[in-house]
């Protein structure tokens, strides 16, 4: 172990702001990306379910071509 104390660890030889600023922003961005990806999945599922209700195909089954065209 090379750190004498926790405060020495956080201080990083005087460069704490730079080191922790790097790691902090990186992990914040990773967390943000994960949240956005999960959010997008939820939004897509919700939107597609609504879309299926709108075209009257609530249950399973393939849409007719005519309905498809009118939807687009």
């Amino acid at each position: 172990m090379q750190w004498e104390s926790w405060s020495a660890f956080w201080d990083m030889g005087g460069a704490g702001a730079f080191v922790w600023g790097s790691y902090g922003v990186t992990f914040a961005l990773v967390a943000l990306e994960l949240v956005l990806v999960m959010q997008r999945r939820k939004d897509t599922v919700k939107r597609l379910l609504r879309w299926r209700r709108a075209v009257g195909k609530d249950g399973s089954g393939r849409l007719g071509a005519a309905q498809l065209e009118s939807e687009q």
Partner: protein
Amino acid sequence: MADGLNLEKNHMNVKPRGPSLFRFAAPQMFYPLAGRLAPWFAAAALVLTAIGMWLSFFVAPTDATQGEVYRVIFIHVPAAWMSMFIYLVMAFWAAVGLVMNTRLSFVMSQALAPTGAMFCFVALWTGALWGKPTWGAYWVWDARLTSQLLLLFLYFGFIALTRAIEDPRRADRAGAIIALVGAVNVPIIYFSVKWWNTLHQGASVSLTKAPSMAATMLAGMLVMAFAAWAYTLAVTLWRVRPMILERERHTEWVGEVLDRERGRG
């Protein structure tokens, strides 16, 4: 457009359970596969990050010349590697899409782009924070930094173009072209910037790292690089799944998936 869609689907229905890996090129095969694989990659990323952080902060020794601030290297270098590598993979999938006419490849390249841009930004950000205490400036117009910045712009261009085009067929192909044009230009940009940089040796900052790097430092960097790989795989697979649903929304199997989702709440 609907014609093309049906054509392709029929083509895929011919052999949905082929013996080769190619059967996963069919969206209805790939969707559940991606869902099964992603958590494993995410877990691997978590474990590797934990190991990497332990190596970076508790095993790797203090650098003789730079002190503790060099520990930024353990995310800076993997992020820079990853940002370049992801662009190449993106261009690869774009080329596969154009040649083989597989829509899944285009979706893959579009799902990779945001993560690549994120790593690109991380590399620039950590580079700036590392630069301030070591060279006294957040930014110098060094060849590597400048190319990294231009790479970020290339990512932005790709993302903006594919988002701006509403017709997915056109968006796929247009994005693929710009990804390939960018990939051809990346080495040209790098060498031109390097040439420019040697002519304008203004600040005369040497960015060459110490030749002898402790083995533990290298190990920490590699483990973090593998963590970045695993993370990229996980997040890309997660991002690809809703994109597939969106594009295949007219098909039966997506209907079944959605019914299951609704049942879940």
